[in-house]
């Protein structure tokens, strides 16, 4: 569609259309080049010569960090005691320690849930591996069909 309409113009018409547009722009003092800010080149050069930041905080990291922190606190809470890690951040009854304790208490049921499910997942995985192994043995041992 675009091709047909573009090629409809002859070279003469194209030149005329170009001249008309240039004349129209000239009436408005265009095309003119706008001078860039005087220090722009210097700013760019400075930016280029400064070493790139190796690592910068990204909010996407939070999505990984929060569950990891929760899991770590959960392990601590399950393995040792719930108030132990919270005590590191102050009194577990007030202040920051209280929030840490809350995190541990939140993480514990998640861990319980995972541990309750991991047996079933383990059994499922073992069954899958055994079936796969039997299937593989059956295929390997089966005689090849004669072709032709």
């Amino acid at each position, binding site marked *: 569609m675009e091709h047909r309409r*573009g*090629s409809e113009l002859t070279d003469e018409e194209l030149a005329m259309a170009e001249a*008309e*547009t240039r004349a129209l722009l000239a009436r408005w003092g*265009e095309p*003119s080049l706008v001078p*860039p800010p005087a220090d722009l080149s210097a700013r760019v050069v400075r930016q280029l*010569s400064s070493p790139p930041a190796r690592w910068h905080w990204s909010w996407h990291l939070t999505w990984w960090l929060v569950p990891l922190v929760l899991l770590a606190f959960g392990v601590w809470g399950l393995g040792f005691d719930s108030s132990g890690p919270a005590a590191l951040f102050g009194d577990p009854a007030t202040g920051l320690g209280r929030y840490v304790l809350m995190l541990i208490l939140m993480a514990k049921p998640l861990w319980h849930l995972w541990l309750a499910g991991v047996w079933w997942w383990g059994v499922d995985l073992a069954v899958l591996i055994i079936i796969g192994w039997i299937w593989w043995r059956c295929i390997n041992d089966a005689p090849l069909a004669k072709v032709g």
Partner: protein
Amino acid sequence: MSDPQSDEIELVARACAGDQSACATIVQRYTGVLYNQAYRMLGDSFEAEDAVQEVFLRAFRKLSSYDPSRRLVTWLLTIGSNYCIDRLRRRRFNWLTLEDVAFWLPSTQPGPERSAIQRASREVVQRALQRLPESYRSVTVLRYWHDLSYDEIGTILGLTEATVKTRLHRARKMLQEALTAEEALWSIEEAAS
């Protein structure tokens, strides 16, 4: 006297080898071109400054992939076009902040009358340009402000020469309509003042 193309190739080779002065020469030489492209495409001088910095960063990051058979300016304008089009697409989803509004507020400092008229007339063309769809605006800017051939525009935007001609044909019509409308408004305002 050295050929400009071989001069560019040498400059790029030196920049690739880590020569800071070659990098600075490239930046100084092409800041104006990239700034004008970004300014015409984005319609805002602050955004154009950001664009120039980002385009140079991208260019120097992949300078080793520069094809010496092309002109350096064409290669830089390709990166500039891609960046501006991306930015215009992202702008559709941006929330308006109070800072944006502050930039739009008219300045309280009165300037000389002549420069004010020049600025106003430039703004008229800028407004008309901003009315064009991105794909038409990019060909118009490259054709009339950067004086590139259809072939070069096609290379920069990844289009065939025929598509460039068609887009320019439509863009010209739109620009003419927009400028004629602005001209009518302008004369009414002048008659009133």
